[in-house]
């Protein structure tokens, strides 16, 4: 009796596994894109649709190259590993192309630079990166803000949060003195929280470029993305998408329409 029950359970499990495996084969032609659902303005979800600067740019590139995309949300710390193992074909979430990450994945050509904003509350003596020393400054773990703060204000007390919302709440409640967000996000927060009297005191353009991540050695896909990227920069699509998500951030010369 016990044995037959085990056999039935085993058979059901096998059937379920087989069914799951079958599903992946059928969708092999659609590229799976790993992205984030909460990282404005680069990658986020709105009304059930994955959007943001990076994802809209990628959609434009895909349209140009006749690629079909399917977006899946994940955790940033897991994203590159999932690209490396082939769970996702492309990683898209404002990923800085650091040497450390190049050991794990390959990157497309640069498609953007992060603009950061130093945000604080009225009455706090923070005006620029030089006045961060000794202050409690919130950053989201593993982001450009995090590495920028470590490199440019090593004497600040970096308070690490898992995502923007937690850091914003801490800034509003006074648990931290300031925070480094993406510039467009920081301005959005200041506008939407008039009671908290938040202000962006300084905008900073960083120098490490963003790239779409692909599996190491997948030069075919990287080549297609790069060709599409060239085309959407040349025809002005890049600037249009940029205007939509980061209207106040400067447009680097290399991304202006007409660039080859």
């Amino acid at each position, binding site marked *: 009796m016990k044995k037959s029950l085990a056999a039935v359970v085993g058979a059901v499990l096998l059937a379920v596994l087989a069914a799951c495996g079958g599903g992946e084969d059928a969708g092999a032609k659609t590229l799976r894109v790993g992205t984030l659902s909460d990282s404005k303005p680069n990658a986020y979800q709105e009304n059930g649709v994955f959007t943001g600067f990076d994802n809209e740019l990628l959609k434009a590139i895909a349209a140009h190259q006749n690629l079909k995309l399917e977006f899946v949300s994940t955790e*940033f*710390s*897991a*994203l*590159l*590993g999932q*690209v*490396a*193992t*082939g769970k996702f074909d492309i990683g898209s979430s404002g990923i800085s192309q*650091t040497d*450390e*990450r190049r*050991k*794990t*994945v390959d990157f497309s050509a640069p498609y953007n630079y992060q603009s950061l904003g130093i945000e604080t509350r009225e009455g706090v003596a923070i005006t620029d990166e030089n006045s961060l020393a000794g202050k*409690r400054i*919130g950053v989201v*773990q*593993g982001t450009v803000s995090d*590495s920028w703060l470590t490199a440019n204000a090593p004497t600040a*007390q*970096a*308070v*690490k*949060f*898992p995502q923007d919302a*937690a*850091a914003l*709440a*801490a800034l509003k*409640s*006074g*648990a*931290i003195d300031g925070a480094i967000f993406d510039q467009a996000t920081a301005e959005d927060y200041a506008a939407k929280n008039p009671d908290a009297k938040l202000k962006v005191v300084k905008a900073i353009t960083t120098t490490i470029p963003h790239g779409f*991540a692909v599996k190491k050695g997948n030069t075919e896909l990287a080549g297609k993305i790069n060709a599409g990227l060239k085309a959407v920069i040349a025809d002005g699509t890049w600037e249009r998408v940029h205007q939509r998500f980061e209207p106040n951030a400067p447009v680097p010369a290399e991304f202006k329409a007409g660039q080859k």
Partner: protein
Amino acid sequence: MDDFLNTFLNWEYIWEVFPDLLGTGLLNTLILSVFSALIGTVLGMLLATMGLSSKAWLRWPARVYTDIFRGLPAILTILVIGQGGGILIPSLSRNPYPLGILALSLIAAAYIGEIFRAGIQSVEKGQMEASRALGMSYTKAMTLVVIPQGVRRVLPALVNQFIALVKDSSLVYFLGFLAEQRDLFRIGQDLAANTGNLSPLVAAGAVYLVITVPLTHLVNYIDKKLRTGRKVRVDDEGGETELLNAGKVPMS
């Protein structure tokens, strides 16, 4: 297979993350979980005895508390107490530890209270009746006779809860940590985010096992001891030399 090993067991990254895990993360995880376990156990016992009381004004608050704190996602409770507590008491908002420990304790208390209640209720009615018949008050009978037996029976379930607490302690991170305040999981995640490799998290997992596995075996050992008592030896003449100090009577 190589991909798999490289993603989860890349020794270079594991080697890199280990000093931080042992030097910073282990201590922080232990601080968070040990303090919450202690406070949670005390509050849990309070909730259990309140829940078993014959007085409705004691029973109902315990019931409502348990339903709420057991029913909400832990992360929400931590955010509400951690961030909200900081707004109400600004002096606490600069350090996530006190409020984080409070939130974890309050959540743990709800679960531990139910574990204690189940244990106490499993003690045969006769125990209470006999104690009362001997002239003990209700309180005395509970504290000296019923509760000790009940707690003993649920020790394994209690340790289950402690293990869950050790793992849940990583959620306090939502309140914001300085580099030296990070717990095991966050240290692993930091390096994982910077490298795109998951091996640092696997290394953190190994340290969690170093805490949780001995805990399980310790409770099994204690549990067995309490169930069987010390061995009784009988000497050659048939006299029971050690019977008088033979320890606990075997339990059902």
